[in-house]
């Protein structure tokens, strides 16, 4: 499939679009934690790194097949997320954000001091197992499962926690258990994204997963529209492609990127698609077309 695509697009752009897909998977995971459940996380990149390193070590050092390694990376990220979430999710708001930020930095330092991860030199020689097609399939699966979860009883409970935790608790929702589950699920998708990332870029370094990356993911989600699945997809796509389109300004690229973030936030404080219900909008648009205006005969 990928070889077919290369006839039309240069391999470079295929790689860029593969990365867009991977970031969408990761950002949707964060959207589940921060957007749907309302729990601020500044350490999402740490879970990406856990998935990336696990999958990469399993395929390179243990010669395991790719897909089980990918799944193992996701599961380990989820387990770590649950174990870490257990004590930490008692915190709320900014304090939770700060604790997750600290956690993210600790994970990086641990990876830098471990031998199996290659320490500060990083892990190289990872085979290129992921492909654009595979990433697209996983993106579609992720979007589908996110919609399924959000429209289930479980998802509604999470949204109730986001809107008002005490009220949700009084209504009989076990908020702690739900928050931990949400954290685990979000981390799972981060881990899967990480495994795909490792087998696309083929080189891992702990510094690639610092808080700057965590903030990137948070920016994708918030700029797209916190809690909105199409918003997250749109935000991730625009912000991942923006540096590519900004290549003509050369060294001013990141400066403009930063300024763009400020400007977009000022004009759309709730994100590009924040507060927009797509299905509703489309329905009203269709209705407007069908119903004739009183003056028309």
């Amino acid at each position, binding site marked *: 499939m990928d070889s077919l695509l290369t006839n039309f697009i240069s391999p470079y752009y295929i790689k860029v679009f593969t990365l867009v897909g991977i970031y969408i998977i990761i950002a949707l995971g964060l959207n589940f934690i921060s957007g749907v459940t309302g729990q601020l996380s500044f350490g999402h990149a740490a879970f990406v790194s856990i998935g990336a390193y696990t999958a990469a070590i399993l395929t390179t050092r243990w010669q395991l097949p790719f897909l089980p390694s990918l799944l193992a990376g996701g599961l380990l990220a989820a387990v770590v997320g649950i174990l870490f979430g257990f004590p930490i999710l008692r915190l709320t708001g900014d304090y939770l954000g700060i604790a997750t930020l600290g956690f993210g930095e600790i994970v990086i330092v641990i990876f830098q001091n471990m031998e199996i991860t290659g320490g500060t030199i990083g892990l190289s020689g990872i085979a290129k197992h992921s492909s654009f097609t595979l990433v697209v399939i996983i993106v579609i699966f992720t979007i589908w499962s996110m919609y399924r979860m959000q429209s289930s009883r479980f998802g509604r409970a999470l949204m109730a926690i986001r809107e008002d935790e005490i009220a949700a608790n009084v209504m009989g929702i076990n908020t702690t258990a739900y928050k931990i589950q949400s954290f685990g699920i979000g981390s799972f998708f981060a881990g899967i994204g990480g495994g795909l990332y490792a087998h696309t870029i083929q080189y891992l370094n702990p510094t690639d997963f610092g808080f700057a990356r965590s903030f990137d993911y948070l920016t994708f989600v918030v700029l797209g529209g916190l809690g909105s699945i199409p918003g997250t997809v749109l935000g991730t796509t625009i912000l991942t492609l923006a540096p590519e389109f900004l290549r003509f300004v050369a060294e001013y690229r990141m400066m403009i990127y*930063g300024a763009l973030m400020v400007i977009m936030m000022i004009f759309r404080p709730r994100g590009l698609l924040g507060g927009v219900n797509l299905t509703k909008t489309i329905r009203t648009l269709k209705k407007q077309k069908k119903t004739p205006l009183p003056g028309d005969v």
Partner: protein
Amino acid sequence: MFWQQLINGITLGATYALIALGYTMVYGIIQLINFAHGEIYMIGAFVGVMAVIVFKVNIFIALLMAIAVCILIGVSVERIAYKPLRRSTRLAPLISAIGVSIFLQTLMTLIAGPQAVGFPQVIDDQLYHIGSVTVSKVQLIILFLASVMMVGLQLIIKYVRIGKAMRAASEDYDTASLMGIDVNRVISFTFAIGSALAAAGGVMVGMYFNSIHPLMGVMAGLKAFCAAVLGGIGSIPGAMLGGLFLGVAEVAGVALGYGGYRDAIAFTLLILVLLFKPTGLLGRPIQRKV
């Protein structure tokens, strides 16, 4: 050995405390984690170096110049990037702050180049021996200036009109504005003071470590922020305590042979403190209402 490390830790902690104060004051009033604050500190260090190298001024005049430039930048950042977002969701100004941070980092990299710049030797490296402890002149200057600034800040907040207005705004933003306090002016003033302290911190760290670079604000900003949270964000004595605590802990950790984990020490402490005291050492408990 112990006293020596303690002095080194306090010196480092004093600079963390200076930056932490800016985070804590801003958070106390508008509940914003000002992620661009570390960049203000970095710019302060660069302005200090430029003043010494290009204009060949005395280090204390360079310090004042750094403070002036940083006040200007800090207040303009607030006006441009945060003020329009004051009534929006909590995360919007946060993302805006990250945008400002990226912008300022790149700007300084373009101006000064991506490599580290050496801080010229502006103070002779005279050492003082007190018993078994050796203190350098730079350390003494840092400790002296930092104490003067912190005491000055306490006096402003306690006794000066605008300081009282700051306390009122941090107590209850809306009520303060109804009582006739010009909250916008208070916020500008808060950003000005915070930026001034960060600029001073930047110049001092430059003098102390003899090297500055455009990304120095990132880690220092994060750790100072940790210090602010550790002490209880919104609390000014808390920021000072948190800064000193973190500086001493970090130096102690390195002295005990955990140099590779240096950056993790601050964050581990932070998480541990938050688990047992969810609002920091001197923070007030959060009141939750339905």
